[in-house]
């Protein structure tokens, strides 16, 4: 793609989302676009606010799971219930890779597979950390571009 095309794409609102998807392909799905669509002049920081709430909520849920894995060995029902909440949260913001790992965990619960649960949980944690990193840098870039940054919005 030529530089002119890249620049012209990022100057439109639509392309901001497309660029976002391109970079975060796999990490974030169409649902994230839906969240972005809800941001407007009335709610100019909506996406960042929701993402912040997501990390607050998911952090709490993950520490519940961590504790439950230790405190309630082989309590697959409990583990699954906690993970169902986390999966729901992921689904709401379009965190697809993290959501998939949540689903693997739940599969392992269903199979009574402790090893599988432990492995999946490590992956959930990793996806969580990666996603946080990517979104933090995404918002940082947006801030650097400034409020009227349509023309100067960085290529992602």
């Amino acid at each position, binding site marked *: 793609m030529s530089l002119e095309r890249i620049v012209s794409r990022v100057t439109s609102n639509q392309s901001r989302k497309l660029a976002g998807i391109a970079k975060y392909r796999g990490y974030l799905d169409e*649902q994230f676009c*839906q*969240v972005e*669509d*809800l941001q*407007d002049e*009335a*709610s100019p920081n*909506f996406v960042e*606010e*929701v993402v912040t*709430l*997501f990390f*607050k*909520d998911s952090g709490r849920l993950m520490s519940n799971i961590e504790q439950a894995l230790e405190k309630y060995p082989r309590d697959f029902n409990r583990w699954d219930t906690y993970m*169902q*909440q986390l*999966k*729901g*949260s992921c*689904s*709401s*913001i*379009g965190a697809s890779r993290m959501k998939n790992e949540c689903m693997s965990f739940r599969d392992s619960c269903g199979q009574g597979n402790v090893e599988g649960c432990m492995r999946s949980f490590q992956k959930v944690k990793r996806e969580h950390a990666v996603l946080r990193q990517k979104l933090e840098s995404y918002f940082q870039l947006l801030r650097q571009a400034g409020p009227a940054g349509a023309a100067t919005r960085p290529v992602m």
Partner: protein
Amino acid sequence: MAVAIEAPFHVLAVDDSLPDRKLIERLLKTSSFQVTTVDSGSKALEFLGLHDHEDSPISTQSDQQEVAVNLIITDYCMPGMTGYDLLKKIKESSYLRDIPVVIMSSDNIPSRINRCLEEGADEFFLKPVRLSDMSKLKPHILKSRCKEHYQQEQHLQSNSESNNSSNPTSENSSSSTSTNSHKRKAVDEEILPHTIRPRHS
């Protein structure tokens, strides 16, 4: 003739998840609804003026400051009182049962969906809920208003026949046959929602 400058419809949204509450609130506001969010079924009942263990309102004073709720949208999976439990309580209450209820769930379980619809839910949304889902809400609110106006008309007719009166009855007269719940204070038209059983399953 009642020429109402309509206040926006008021939706009560119930969800224990913080990001989901933020999302549903935005979805509803973007769709021109007035929104109140609560994080549990019991708080929802409290807001609606009902204690868990009663089916009549905390106060029945008609001049009490009431907050009209035109629709309730609730998550299914919540700790303590689930969305289904909340739905049941609402439908068991003569005071609340006419308010349309929508259930949201991230799990696509047909038996769950059917159970909710059978219990009187007007709609079931799969999460994540989208902006396009919001357009399904207003019809349920309007249906309940139309039906209520029809019922009021019937009641007024039978009233005037029995009283042999030619005076038009005030629209705001409370009747024993319709629920007193959730009269909108700020507008001319009275809104007394009524249960609409879904035609589809």
